[in-house]
């Protein structure tokens, strides 16, 4: 038993995860109405990206400013499946070519492009949501890391990729829906995703997937590979001279972050009911990094709170100050980064946890070996 607890990040981390699970799965659904809950579900999809960023930026030292591309891959895969289902010949009888998505018809596309064919099948769609981003991350990683491109250069390249992806999607509007995106998604295998009951179910699915991703993240960090990752971030050459292939370590964590983002994207398309290129571009990709920074880039769970809080603030502020909110958001980011460089997790570690530790017996804290190295890590 202890072995398993240690394998997933130690008791402390697991308790924090449990607290998050209780908050997401019990407390919030009981206190929020379905509209707010659905919004929350949307924010949680960004948390997948932020969690991925904690792994690859916080622990791996690889700053990617293009995570929106992976989010978009997952989102577009899911949206394409849902759109095909919504474009049955009966639903689209009014078009010149019934049976294809409406935007294709507007763009004089007369038959379903090859690229869309796999998305007739849900199982194939799910497989693609997981493999396409992994493969893409592998290709980018292989091209960059094997040549020892890193740091700022890598960040710039990922940003360029995000920019290219947006231009491609907008330019190929007959195949992708262009700047409008893929809209009006209705059913998943005949199950209507729009009513309140479906929103509840999708919210819970999203929470559970997020918790699974968090567990995977903690497992990875607690493993030998996790130690290597941190070692590589701090002293890349030493790890290389010790005989490890640094590029492979980087590729793996980058791909893992990409797959997490894609799962978030797919859940986004399901819960929000559409997908558009504005979730692929540079602005959103940088926003994702901000969620991660606010949450604390060394804390997986902090990233979830970061994504939730930033988006909550965004919604609240823009509802109250339609014309000024964006200024407040800017001030918030600058403030957090200046005052709390370790983000929310840093605040927790420095101020909240010591109080808790005094409340409970000292023993339980010191016993928690698995967590120690990570906690020290966070303070360094």
């Amino acid at each position: 038993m202890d072995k398993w607890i240690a394998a997933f990040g130690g008791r402390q981390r697991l308790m924090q995860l449990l607290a998050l699970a209780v908050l997401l799965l019990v407390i919030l659904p009981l206190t929020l109405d379905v509209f707010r809950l659905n919004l929350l579900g949307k924010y949680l999809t960004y948390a997948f990206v932020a969690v991925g960023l904690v792994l690859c930026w916080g622990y791996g030292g690889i700053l990617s400013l293009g995570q929106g591309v992976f989010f978009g891959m997952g989102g577009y895969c899911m949206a394409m499946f849902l759109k095909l289902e919504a474009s049955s010949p009966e639903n689209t009888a009014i078009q010149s070519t019934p049976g294809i998505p409406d935007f294709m018809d507007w763009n004089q596309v007369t038959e379903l492009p090859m690229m869309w064919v796999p998305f007739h099948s849900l199982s194939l769609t799910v497989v693609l949501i997981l493999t396409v981003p992994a493969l893409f991350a592998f290709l980018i990683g292989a091209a960059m890391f094997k040549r020892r491109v890193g740091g700022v250069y890598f960040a710039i390249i990922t940003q360029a990729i995000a920019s290219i992806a947006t231009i491609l999607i907008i330019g190929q509007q007959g195949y992708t829906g262009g700047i409008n995106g893929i809209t009006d998604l209705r059913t998943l295998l005949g199950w209507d995703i729009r009513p309140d009951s479906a929103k509840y179910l999708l919210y819970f699915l999203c929470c559970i997937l997020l918790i699974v991703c968090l567990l995977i993240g903690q497992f990875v960090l607690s493993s030998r590979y996790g130690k290597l990752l941190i070692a590589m971030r701090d002293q890349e050459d030493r790890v290389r001279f010790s005989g490890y292939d640094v590029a492979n370590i980087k590729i793996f964590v980058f791909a893992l972050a990409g797959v997490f983002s894609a799962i978030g994207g797919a859940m986004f398309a399901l819960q929000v009911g559409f997908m558009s290129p504005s979730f692929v571009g540079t602005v959103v990709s940088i926003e994702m990094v901000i969620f991660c920074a606010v949450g604390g880039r060394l804390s997986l769970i902090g990233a979830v709170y970061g994504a939730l809080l930033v988006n909550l603030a965004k919604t609240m502020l823009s509802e109250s100050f339609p014309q000024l909110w964006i200024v407040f958001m800017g001030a918030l980011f600058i403030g957090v980064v200046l005052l709390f460089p370790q983000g929310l997790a840093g605040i927790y570690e420095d101020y909240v946890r010591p109080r808790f530790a005094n409340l409970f017996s000292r023993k339980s804290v010191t016993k928690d070996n698995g967590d120690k190295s990570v906690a020290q890590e966070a303070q360094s």
Partner: protein
Amino acid sequence: MQDSTRSKPAWKRRLLGLALSTGLGFTGMAGAAEVNTTGLAVTDDTVQVGILHSVTGTMAISETGSVEAEKLAIEQINAMGGVLGRQIEIIQEDGASDWPTFAEKARKLLVQDHVAAVFGCWTSASRKAVLPVFENQNGMLYYPTFYEGLEQSKNVIYTGQEATQQIIAGLDWIAQEKDAKTFYLVGSDYIWPRTSNKIARKHIEDVLGGTVVGEEYYPLGNTNFGSLINKIRLKKPDVVYSSIVGGSNVAWWKQLKAAGITADRQTIMTISVTEDEVLGIGGENMEGFYSAMKYFQSLDNENNVAFVNAFKERWGDDSVIGDVTQAAYLGPWLWKAAVEKAGSFDIDAVAAASADIELTTAPEGYVKVHENHHLWSKLRVGQWQADGQAKVVYESELIEPNPFPEGYQ
């Protein structure tokens, strides 16, 4: 909250001659339950509506005019006694030039605030993003922008022109006036220019017997039109037909002028430049070129003079009014007329009552809602002057809206 409808005489303020041709005589006060059976935000004294435009981000410059026009119309309606005796209260949300945000805010307005109507959206993309929300939650949207058509919804009233209204009459006029045979189509790369040019091409080739010598698209925000200008010089088309939108316009028209392509050498007709854009482009750069729109600020009729004066009084002397701003101004008036015709705020009743609503007081002139929820309207061709205003050189008959044009697909 004070009962404003009873405590101050609603007719106290002098109005601008804006009276509706329908439903004006409604004086009896029905209880909130009678006029609102579906739980909308209606009390005995007030009714809440939403305004959903971008007031931040890249679209803010275009959408601000619409917000101002909608607020002006609502203030005028309130001064006249409101709708069914109820003062209109506005809940404004910011779409932030971001389509998903539009969807989120639309949901908020309908699900949380239960507004009786929403005036909003500008780009097609934002409308496409909110459309499923309005259809699922059964809300009412008044959409002001000229757009590509191919859409019709019980839950939307389109107060701008759909593509055939804007394109066909304008092409007919320019073909005749300039004896034009060859056309060069250019546009920004998204659904509206592409659909518009599809209709234009069909009409040029099948009806006018002309030829399209080029058709090109540039990404939104593109600012380098050098190669396009060279191609135009090479092909020497009789007419360049432009649907380049937004900020790209500034570069496009200035580069034309810099290349020596002026109105006396090259006829250019655009369907995407209103007074708002000319403000940014500069009247001297647009002088002599044509825009095909349903409304120009310079329209010389009583309604429009009153509207322009009221607008400037409310929002400042240097404000300009473009086609979309005027269309946005119609939204609250059309909604008021439909509510009073239906005798109810219920969405289904308002949607059903909307067909055949007429306004005789619209700045653009007589307006009538078609059963397809678009407006009958005229097409006008304006020739731009150095002062940034257009001289109207052509005015069509009323054109029937036809969002799904047969033979143009």
